[in-house]
C-alpha cells in the first residue's frame, strides 16, 4: 500500500488486490482488545489507578460499539474503493483515516495481548510456535505496515 495523493478532503492510497484483502481481513477483526487490558497493565506495573474503573470500562465498551458501526459504514461505502489498472484506490477523509488507525491499533494491541504481551516478538522460542502464535504475530507485524503508511499520510511535516 502506498500514499498516492493528499489534500484537505482526504487521502488516496493504492493497494494491490491481495493487500486490500489483507487490510479488510485485519479491520474486520475489530474489536480484539479486551476490556481488562488497562487493569492487567496496571497490575503488571503495580499501579493503583484512581477514578471509577467500572465507569471507564463501560464507556470503553460503548466506544467500541460506536467505532464498529463507524467502521461498517466506511467498509460498506462503495465509493471508498475505485478500481485502478494497478490495483485498487482507497479514498479516505482525514476522520475516516483516524478511525481506521484506531481500529488497526486495537487489532494490533489485542493480538499482542493474546500472545501474552511479549516484550519482544522475536523472543518467542521456536519450539513454542504454533499456528495461533504465528497467525497473531503476523497480525501484529502486518498491522504495523498499514499503520505506518496511514501515519505518514496524516503527518503534515
Amino acid at each position: 500500500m502506498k500514499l498516492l495523493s493528499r489534500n484537505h478532503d482526504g487521502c488516496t492510497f493504492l493497494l494491490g488486490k491481495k493487500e486490500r484483502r489483507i487490510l479488510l481481513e485485519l479491520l474486520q477483526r475489530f474489536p480484539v482488545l479486551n476490556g481488562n487490558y488497562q487493569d492487567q497493565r496496571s497490575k503488571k506495573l503495580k499501579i493503583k489507578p484512581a477514578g471509577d474503573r467500572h465507569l471507564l470500562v463501560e464507556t470503553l465498551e460503548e466506544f467500541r460499539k460506536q467505532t464498529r458501526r463507524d467502521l461498517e459504514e466506511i467498509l460498506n461505502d462503495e465509493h471508498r474503493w475505485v478500481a485502478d489498472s494497478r490495483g485498487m484506490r482507497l479514498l479516505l477523509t482525514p476522520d475516516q483515516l483516524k478511525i481506521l488507525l484506531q481500529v488497526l491499533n486495537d487489532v494490533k494491541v489485542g493480538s499482542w495481548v493474546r500472545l501474552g504481551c511479549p516484550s519482544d516478538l522475536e523472543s518467542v522460542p521456536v519450539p513454542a510456535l504454533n499456528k495461533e502464535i504465528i497467525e497473531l504475530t503476523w497480525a501484529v507485524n502486518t498491522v504495523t505496515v498499514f499503520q505506518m503508511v496511514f501515519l505518514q499520510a496524516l503527518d503534515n511535516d
Partner: protein
Amino acid sequence: MVRKPVPTVEPIKVVQPKNQKALGPSYLVVCWDDPINVMEYVAHVFQIVFGWNKEKAVKHMLEVHHEGKSVLACECLEKAEHFVHALQTYALHATLQKADS
C-alpha cells in the same frame, strides 16, 4: 516502544496554586510505556486527544519512551477522566492518579 525495562513507580508531586484546595483535588493523567505501540502512533494520539502541536506531542512521547511514563495533564476529576478514557480508546496504557497536595 520496544525493549524497555518495567519502570519503577515513584510518587508524582505537582506544585499547585494556593487556592487549589478550594477548587477540589487535582488528578494527573499519566501515560505509561509499553513494548507494542510505535512512537509515531503515540505522538499522533497525543496530538488528537490534547490538541497539541507535533513538537509538544513528540516531547511527551519521548518522555514515555525514555522515562517509562509521562504526566500529560493535571485537571479536575471530570476532565482527567475524560482524557484517560480518550487515551484508552487508542489502546494506550493511561491511568488517573490523585496529585499530591
